[in-house]
C-alpha cells in the first residue's frame, strides 16, 4: 500500500465500506505514515463537522400536524 492508494481509499475506509483485508492494509499504512495519518484525521473531522452542522433541523411542527391531518383526518 502506497500513499496514493491509501488516500484513494480513505473515504471508503472512513465509511467502513472496505473489505476486511483492504481495511487492514489501510490501517497498517496509516500507523506507519504520519502525513496520511494527518489527512485521515482531517477527513474524519470534516465528516463529523458536516453531520453536526446539517442535522440540527427537523420537520416543522406545522408539517407534522398537516401530515397527520391528511393521513388520519385529525
Amino acid at each position, binding site marked *: 500500500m502506497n500513499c496514493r492508494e491509501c488516500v484513494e481509499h480513505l473515504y471508503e475506509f472512513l465509511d467502513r465500506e472496505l473489505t476486511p483485508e483492504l481495511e487492514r492494509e489501510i490501517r497498517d499504512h496509516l500507523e506507519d505514515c504520519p502525513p496520511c495519518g494527518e489527512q485521515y484525521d*482531517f477527513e474524519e473531522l470534516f465528516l463529523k463537522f458536516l453531520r453536526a452542522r*446539517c442535522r440540527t433541523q427537523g420537520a416543522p411542527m406545522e408539517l407534522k400536524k398537516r401530515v397527520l391531518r391528511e393521513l388520519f383526518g385529525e
Partner: protein
Amino acid sequence: MAKTPSPDVSPPVDEKRASFEREALVHLDVLYRVALRLSGNPSDADDLVQETMLKAYRAWDQYEKGTNAKAWLLTILRHAFINEYRRRTRHPETVNLDKIEPYAVFPDVQDEDPQGAFFDRIVDDEVLRAIDQLPVAFRETLVLSDVEGMSYQEIAGILEIPVGTVKSRLFRARQQLQGKLYEYAVEMGYIKGSPA
C-alpha cells in the same frame, strides 16, 4: 371446525395506522431534511414530504414490514421530486459531472491548519448553502451518506445507480464541498490559505 372467516381481509385500520406510525412517521425529520436539500426551499419541501407520506400510506400494504422503511420512503420521495422537477423545468440541470475537476483541500491547509480548525468557525447556514450549490447528483448522494448516514448499498438502491457510482460521486461531492467551504473560510479570514 373452521374458523368463521373475518368479514374484512385487509388488516384493521388501527393496525395499519399503528405500524405506519411506528415504521414510517418516525422518519419525518429525515424526509424533511432530504426534501429541503433537494427542492431548495421550505414550502416545496413541505409539499414533497406530504406527497411522500400520502403515497407511502396508500402503498403501505406493499411494503414488507420490518425491512428498511427509511430507504423505501426516500425512494418514494425522490421519485416525487424527479416528477415534479421534470414537470417544472424544461431544461433540467445539465452539468457534466465528469468535467468537474477533483480538488483536494488537505494539501493546501496541511501546513497552516492540518486539524481543520477553520471548519469549526463555519456556521450551519453557510454549510447548507454550500451543499445547495452542488450539482443535484452530488448533493443527493452526499446528503444521504453524510447527513443521514446511509450505506453505499442503500444509496445505490434509492438513487438507482451502481455502488461504484455512489463511491465516485461521494468522493467528488465531498471534495467539491470542502473546496467551497475552504474558499469561504479564506474569504472570511478564518484561514490565510495558500496564494492562488
